[in-house]
């Protein structure tokens, strides 16, 4: 596996940071070197939240990503802010429910996923992140879906069985959109 550098970004409250943490926990579970770096503080409310996740077979120097292999954006400001970070040939995942606009990048692989709509359909806006994650896992081999599911307890400390169930459902739905 090559080194994966993933930026996830969206509104505060869209579960961006947990999405990233799930990837990091799963990567660690698979014996990879991992780092996770969030944006933090008041910009999380109202503004945007994002995190940088790196998974690698090698020790990781900087936890900050200046050239991402994958960018996942859940809203328009995040698309505009982070599409330039994507390396040529990288993967751009867009939450098409909230982002009607197109990316300006033509040198990358772009995929539009109606994540929020799927989540609304599942009855909980909050699981849009899991739909997106499912799609990401279906598209790449960054980590195994099972490693992610094994990490639920760690990333969502106070989750209930019902919510976990919904999360898995959302992830599967995301996967299914791709396959």
């Amino acid at each position, binding site marked *: 596996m090559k080194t994966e550098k993933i930026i996830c970004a969206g509104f505060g409250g869209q579960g961006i940071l947990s999405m990233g*943490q799930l990837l990091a926990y799963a990567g660690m579970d698979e014996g990879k070197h991992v780092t996770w770096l969030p944006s933090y503080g008041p910009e999380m409310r109202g503004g945007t939240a994002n995190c940088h996740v790196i998974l690698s077979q090698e020790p990781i120097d900087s936890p900050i990503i200046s050239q991402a292999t994958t960018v996942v954006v859940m809203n328009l400001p995040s698309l505009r802010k982070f599409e330039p970070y994507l390396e040529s040939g990288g993967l751009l995942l867009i939450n098409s429910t909230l982002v009607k606009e197109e990316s300006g990048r033509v040198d990358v692989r772009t995929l539009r996923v109606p994540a929020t709509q799927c989540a609304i359909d599942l009855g909980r806006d909050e699981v849009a992140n899991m739909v997106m994650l499912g799609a990401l896992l279906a598209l790449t081999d960054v980590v195994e879906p099972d490693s992610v599911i094994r990490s639920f307890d760690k990333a969502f400390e106070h989750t209930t069985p019902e919510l976990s169930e919904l999360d898995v459902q959302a992830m599967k739905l995301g996967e299914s959109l791709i396959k």
Partner: protein
Amino acid sequence: MAKVLMKGNEAIALAAIKAGCRYYFGYPITPQTELLEYMASELPKVGGVFVQAESEVAAINMVYGAAAAGGRVMTTTSSPGYALMQEGISYIAAAETPCVIVNISRGGPGLGNIQPAQSDYFQNTRGGGSGDYRLLIFAPASLQETVDLVQESFTLAQKYRMVVLISADGMLGQMMEPVDIKEVDSPEDEEKQWALTATEGKRPPRAIYSLYLDPVELEKANERLQANYEKVSKLEERYELLQMDDAQLVIVTYGSVSRIVKSAISLLAGEGIKVGLIRPISLWPFPKKAFEQIPDSAKGLLTVELSRGQMVDDVRIAAKGALPVHFYGRCGGMIPSPREIADEVKRILRGDKS
């Protein structure tokens, strides 16, 4: 213990607890807050004491009291909060009461912002309190190094009866990385011969203070401090060197940003440019010895910081004018990319900038 994936702030807190820290006094401030929160939830579980102070001023003075009483004590904060602690730190240093402080720094000056920055170098290394005192200061670059140094800090604080400061920034405080936090054997410390424990009728009263109305006494007290600092500066210089042989340029950098510098050095190596690295781990004592190992091939030094050049002073002093000292830094939460740093190195080697 096996490696666990933890947020820097929480890892520091856990490391401290495992090193026997049982007293914590602090005040919330981003990007340090998770540390306080972790202490609030975990310390009571091991019979420790967590007090949320009314301010950083109160927090550091509670630390002073607890340290004087012989407790293994810590406080943590971030830049503006650290500024408010300066008077108290000066008192603690003067009274030779051991404690550990963690400063998870952020952008300044003033309220600034909460992003990673290293512009506390001056207030960390030169203090903002009055008097000729010093802190033992470590600036780790990875979470593993951070937790190891935090644990050692408690031992060193006791040993030298000194304040040990861990200087880190928001990047280290906020990121997650796998760490292995050891259970430190903290045998009940031998009875502290100086601590305030009440006499219980068994010994004469003790007093801990920093007032010496008579200049002769105050100078003596200062000399005692200086002798201790002398010893510490001989024994505790720490640094990492990388790729010094044949280096055309040596980068001096520390803490979080050194990780990016390492990426830049790899980048440059790929382009056939050999750049060495001196990474001070102890900021005081500043690792002068590292500078003796600069190869003759080096045409200059480049200091890279997340500030407008505060460590440059120490680098200039350590380099003794032997080589030109260049500087590259970003600030206010801006983080340079490895590419930017590599480009700067190339500019310097081309001689575009002196």
